[in-house]
């Protein structure tokens, strides 16, 4: 295995069990992430993006969820086989996460400082005063002005954008090798979105972290990522370098997604939408899960399509010949 691959996910399967049905939230996801690169994972709500990211750190609550198969190789170790205390040492220190909603991902009863200190005290063994110094430093790094005073504030005294900055500061405190950002800007308004994305981009280069950026907004991944994985119904249906995915999408679902981005240049009377609804993951159709909504259905679609390599870095799971 090439040494510059930092994370390799192979055939990851995470199922949720409830009331006699099985929801295959993530069903056979595989991808690799090179050191220093940014991978975007895009897809609709419920396509398994977040579950994939939570599964990497084994944060799926059991019950009802369970990672039933696959490997997540990080630094030559399969994270799925580590003991609970070994994986805990990786969480936050070597792989950090930023969550979707900054309004709820900070503990309302603890000061910002106490929450920032918790990580470095835990992972780096810093003393309380060292950790405080580090926390102020991190807050300054993410652009919180007057950090030495604001560190003693509570989360509700921060705006959404500032809280997300705090979350980023927290995630990057231990200089993680991998940062998983799960829809980091979904809950923020557009101008703040841009600031946060620039911040992640800048810090990624400064600290040298690899990033997995999960989003449903194609506009975000376009400017941020090196590769994109498109997820549908718990599977990666297309994987390609960012530019190639935008210029020559292969899978009908990707094409549909790209078409549904409104174009401000043309005066569209009606926005394009992919017909139908995302499938119920506990009752997936036979064969290709996208076939009921696909405009190019063929007889073969009754069978699950194999993953086809289109060129060196471009894969697609579709029967279509291009």
């Amino acid at each position, binding site marked *: 295995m090439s040494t510059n691959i930092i994370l390799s996910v192979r055939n990851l399967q995470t199922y949720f069990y409830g009331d006699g049905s099985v929801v295959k939230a993530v069903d056979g996801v595989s991808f690799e992430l090179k050191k220093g690169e940014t991978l975007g994972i895009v897809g609709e709500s419920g396509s398994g993006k977040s579950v994939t990211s*939570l599964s990497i750190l084994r944060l799926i609550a059991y019950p009802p969820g369970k990672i039933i198969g696959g490997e997540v190789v990080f630094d030559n170790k399969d994270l799925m086989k580590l003991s609970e205390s070994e994986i805990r040492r990786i969480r936050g220190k070597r792989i950090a996460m930023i969550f*979707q909603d900054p309004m709820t991902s900070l503990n309302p009863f603890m000061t910002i400082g106490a929450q920032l200190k*918790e990580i470095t005290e835990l992972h780096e063994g810093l003393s309380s005063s060292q950790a405080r110094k580090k926390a102020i430093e991190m807050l300054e790094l993410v652009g919180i002005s007057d950090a030495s005073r604001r560190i003693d504030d509570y989360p509700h005294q921060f705006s959404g*954008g500032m809280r997300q900055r705090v979350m980023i500061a927290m995630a990057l405190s231990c200089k993680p090798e991998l940062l998983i950002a799960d829809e980091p800007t979904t809950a923020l308004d557009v101008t703040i979105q841009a*600031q946060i994305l620039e911040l992640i981009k800048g810090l990624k280069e400064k600290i040298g972290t690899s990033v997995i950026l999960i989003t449903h907004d194609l506009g975000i991944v376009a400017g941020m990522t090196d590769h994109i994985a498109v997820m549908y119904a718990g599977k990666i249906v297309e994987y390609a370098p960012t530019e190639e995915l935008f210029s020559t999408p292969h899978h009908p679902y990707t094409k549909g997604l790209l078409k549904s981005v409104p174009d401000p240049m043309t005066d569209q009377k009606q926005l394009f939408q992919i017909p139908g609804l995302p499938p119920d993951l506990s009752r997936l159709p036979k064969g290709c899960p996208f076939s009921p909504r696909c405009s190019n259905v063929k007889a073969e679609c009754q069978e699950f399509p194999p993953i086809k390599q289109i060129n060196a870095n471009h894969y697609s799971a579709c029967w279509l010949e291009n």
Partner: protein
Amino acid sequence: MSQQVNTRVEDTSPVVGSSLWQDAWQRLKKNKLAMLGVVILLIIILVSTFGPLLSSYSYDQINLDRNSEPPSWEHWFGTDQLGRDILVRTLVGGRISLMVGIIATAVSFVIGVTYGAISGYFGGYIDELMMRIVDIIYSLPYLFLVIVLLAFFTKSIFMLFFILGGVSWLTMARIVRGQVLSIKNQEFIEAARAVGVETPMIIFRHVIPNTLGPVIVYTTLTIPSAMLSEAFLSFLGLGVQPPLASWGTMVNDGVEAIAVYPWQLIFPGLLMAVTLFSLNFLGDGLRDALDPQMRKD
């Protein structure tokens, strides 16, 4: 590059720090009835702690020549059938009653919060098992349980405190469990786990503090109920043993002589009623102060 990193958030006005607790305190201060309760409670605690030291009488000093005297300058609250000073006895009784309230509540707080938090946080079979145990204990008659436990252990007064606490944590456990169930799925708990915080730390640092609002309210309401239970048990002869007094035993003694020597009932009864009222007002005030719905005003 660094230009982009330094997109600073403008801090337009200085923010005055106010935590959730400070907010609640501000609202509590506006509630006159609750503040009156706080003041009265503080006075009662102070007076019953230090008052007996200032008196020339002791609570068990019998003077049969001067039994059942009405209030006078010598004995402000009068004397009882054995000629003991009722003022001193009421204050000493207050110590016991307040201690029963506080210790029993503290015991029920510690057991209930820990039990409920563990049950709620782990969920699944553990939760099921732990809550069925609570249900079973719930189904036993409270008084029966207390009497059995009191008969089983020595009848020391501290045992009474612990037994009262030991049977009143059930509701607390249920309240905390319910709170934890709603809190454990919030993102900041997931964020704490994603950072590698250990489970006990998550429960005690991140989960429990967030359940405390309703718990504190319930706690202030548990104190009077423990005091009432003690009074009731003492009334049945199971609680505080003479010559030591609590408000409960004094009311019990006073009831027998209510027609002839009403002061023997009135003073301890009045003090107890005032304390219970104050605690209830404070509990109501705290509930309002900690309720996020009330923040709109």
